[in-house]
């Protein structure tokens, strides 16, 4: 069974440009999460989809970030326009059950560098 897949693995863009990150969750997983790790600090929650609906987007830093999950399958996270402080590793995770004790399965991450 394929795990969570993220594209691209690395992206280097200039300040002001647009970048779109993609996440393919494990097949059948209704729950999809985005997290990011900035400057080697803690991994922080961005948002949570249940199927195609945004269940919780309390972690989205500002309106330059837009996440979508059309059809409840893969998800995209667009940053427009990118700023220097957006650099970091963006992780996607998925889980079948949305429970307190349910572990999420993570992808390998997308390393975003804004120059």
């Amino acid at each position: 069974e394929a795990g969570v897949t993220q594209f691209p693995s690395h992206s280097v863009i200039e300040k002001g440009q647009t970048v779109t990150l993609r996440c393919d969750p494990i097949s059948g997983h209704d729950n999809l999460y985005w997290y990011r790790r900035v400057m080697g600090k803690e991994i922080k929650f961005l948002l949570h989809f249940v199927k195609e609906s945004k269940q919780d987007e309390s972690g989205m830093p500002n309106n330059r970030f837009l996440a979508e999950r059309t059809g409840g399958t893969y998800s995209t996270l667009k940053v427009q326009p990118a700023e220097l402080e957006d650099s970091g590793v963006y992780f996607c995770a998925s889980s079948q059950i949305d429970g307190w004790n349910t572990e999420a399965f993570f992808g390998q991450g997308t390393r975003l560098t804004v120059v």
Partner: protein
Amino acid sequence: AQSVAQPEDQVNVAEGNPLTVKCTYSVSGNPYLFWYVQYPNRGLQFLLKYITGDNLVKGSYGFEAEFNKSQTSFHLKKPSALVSDSALYFCAVREDSGSARQLTFGSGTQLTVLP
């Protein structure tokens, strides 16, 4: 609000010696605790979790963790370290209050096992 602290950025241990990676947490409700590991150029991999019951939890690759409610700790341990255990370890917590299902992570601990 929930939080996690990993007080050590770096832990070095000799191969064959026991290892401990420390984690303390703060929650309002009941905690659900997780350990993840990130090997170089890989995604986060689930190691183990504490739900309720036995305070000593066993997980993948010979790792275990001890839940201590009075000290609000969930330290990761292994009796005999291997060089291949060298990786970045993250502790995470989720509390059973409110509707949010997000994980709150610590800042990570880089474990280096020396041959």
